[in-house]
């Protein structure tokens, strides 16, 4: 099981009496896109919030295999999950820094690296060469990603002024700037048209294949899920009701039941 990137065991999250996630066990592989699907309110985003430290899970364990070094995600609180464990995420409702330029958004994502390079601002204040060099490198990385999503010529515009589809893509590449091991995407295709959706698929495949970054995906758009998922986990009322390949999922009676209901 050295190929396992994320190993979630018996994850449970309760809000008072409400059980949002009930004893969920699943794993995600390093070179896979793992999708979590399910009807609204099934607890998909809650899983993300537990993984990325925004919620503290009530019970269960979450381990990340980082270069064969097993890290317990429960040990990290909010920002440390991104900083120390290298788990990046995007949000269902886009969370860019709208009044800051596209390039600045990318630079903020490389904050921790640059903070060290700037000697916690002291070297930066005196214009130290080593910091300027690091800043240039960070700009190169930003440019590399912006080239991929075709936004380089808008790098100096405010992120909030971009079209919706571009904002989605920007949020994903911004998350990639922290060089994550696991990228968690919360409904990246929501509100995209067919062409933008196809572009997104391409981008996600590129991240998976070329960047060797595992992807965990929450999605409603079945064309995206079926097109790129290597593995699908289906949730309903916080419980896992099915797990398998995209094809198996499509034909599973439990899944059809959860989505469409049964005949009485």
């Amino acid at each position, binding site marked *: 099981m050295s190929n396992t990137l994320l190993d979630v065991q018996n994850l449970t999250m309760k809000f008072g009496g409400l059980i949002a996630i009930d004893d969920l066990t699943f794993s995600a592989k390093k070179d896979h896109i793992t999708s979590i699907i399910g009807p609204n309110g099934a607890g998909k985003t809650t899983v993300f919030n537990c993984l*990325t*430290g*925004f919620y503290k899970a009530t019970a269960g364990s979450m381990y990340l295999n980082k270069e064969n070094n097993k890290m317990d995600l429960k040990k990290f609180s*909010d*920002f*440390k*999950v*991104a*900083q*120390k464990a290298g788990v*990046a*995420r*995007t*949000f269902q409702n886009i*969370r*860019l*820094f*709208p*009044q*800051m*330029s596209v*390039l*600045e958004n990318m*630079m*903020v*994502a490389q*904050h*921790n690296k*640059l*903070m060290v*390079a*700037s000697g*916690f*601002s002291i070297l*930066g*204040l005196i214009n130290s060469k080593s910091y300027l060099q690091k*800043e240039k490198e960070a*700009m190169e990385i*930003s*440019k590399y990603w*912006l080239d991929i999503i075709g936004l*380089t*010529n808008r*790098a*100096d515009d405010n992120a909030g002024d971009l079209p919706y589809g571009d904002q989605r893509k920007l949020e994903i590449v*911004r*998350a990639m*700037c*922290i060089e994550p091991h696991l990228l968690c995407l919360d409904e990246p295709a929501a509100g995209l048209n067919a062409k933008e959706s196809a572009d997104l698929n391409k981008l996600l495949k590129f991240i998976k294949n070329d960047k060797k970054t595992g992807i965990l995906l929450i999605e409603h758009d079945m064309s995206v899920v079926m097109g790129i998922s290597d593995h699908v986990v289906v949730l309903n009322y916080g419980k896992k009701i099915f797990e398998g390949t995209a094809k198996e999922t499509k034909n599973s009676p439990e899944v059809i039941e959860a989505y469409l209901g049964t005949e009485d």
Partner: protein
Amino acid sequence: MGKDLIQKSLKDSLFTGIIALALFGPIVGLRTVAKNEVLVVEPKWFVVLLIVAFCAVGRFFINIYTYKKEKRRGESSSLGKAISNFLDEKGAQIAIAAIAFSIIFPFMPFADRYWMDIAIMMMTYIMLGWGLNIVIGLAGLLDLGYVAFYAVGAYSYALFAIHFGWSFWICLPIAGLFAGMFGILLGFPVLRLRGDYLAIVTLAFGEMIRILLLNWYELTKGPDGLTGIPRPSFFGLPFKRYPDEGVETFHTFFGLEYDPMQRIIFLYYLILILALITNAFTIKIRRLPVGRAWEALREDEIACKSLGVNPRNTKLTAFAVGAMFGGFAGSFFATRQAFISPESFTFIESAIIVAIVVLGGMGSQTGVVLSTIFLIGLIEVFRDFESYRMVAFGGAMVLIMVFRPRGILAKRKPTITMGKHG
């Protein structure tokens, strides 16, 4: 729309007139005068009529003006835009011209004691505005108790200078450090608070410091204030007409006639340098990772967390750095006045500084200068009208908010650019 608009506006202005009558009738219209040792009410209806007419007519025109632009509400007026664009384009030249003007200012023919005092006061507010701009403008943390750090700076400067006899240049960094520490002290409990809640707690913090200064008599002499704070010297040369035995003074060293203006001019340059340092520091740190993180935090704290930015440290540095500059300004205030008491650090000071930052356009360094000149200048112009000063102040704020709803200079420049084609 046209006729309907005028009808509506007329109705509205009539309503405004009634409110104005209700307000100003008793406030302005009725005046008690002592006549033959009896208080007699003397009505001044003509003045009231003038004010009411002014309010009603003004309301009418504002209505027409703003309704006309309804389709682009939220945008600022074309005049304001033109000014802002002009300032954007010629920003560098204007900044240089302004700095040059402030350097030669003391030698202008009209720069007498009165003007110098106003200039020093404005410069102090500009410095405070720049310091608070880090907290409010960049990090987006609404701090209504900024005057607390000004007070901490002033008192720590005064206490160190009085008790240890250390010179200005030693006490200044210590005072800044103390203020910065208080910034962190305030920062910790308010880390989780945002918006209104943060504003309330910082406001309380400002009052706490003032009340502490008022009641800790052994240390601060309470309401009596601290007197005899050493005046600054020009690298060890004091500004005194009759110096102590064996001490060379500024005017004898340079072979000048003694003139009390020498000290004022020195103070002016001192605050000018301190303010410019604050400005240069802010401009520079805005382009460093920590500065970008401040702005990112203002934009979206959750997104910051998801990118591994530590919100606690980022907020604390913003509070500490902002407070530090408040402390520097405080030490200057102490050494200028030679006397400080808690009276000088009331909430109204915080409010004025916040107004300067917000009206200038959050995060805009030039905006702080413009709004300081506008607001403090206005207060000064209305000095003779005493109780109407604050009315003028409020009126100025309303005007800015009507014409420039996002502050005088609302446009933000990116901290790093890719250039035309990368």
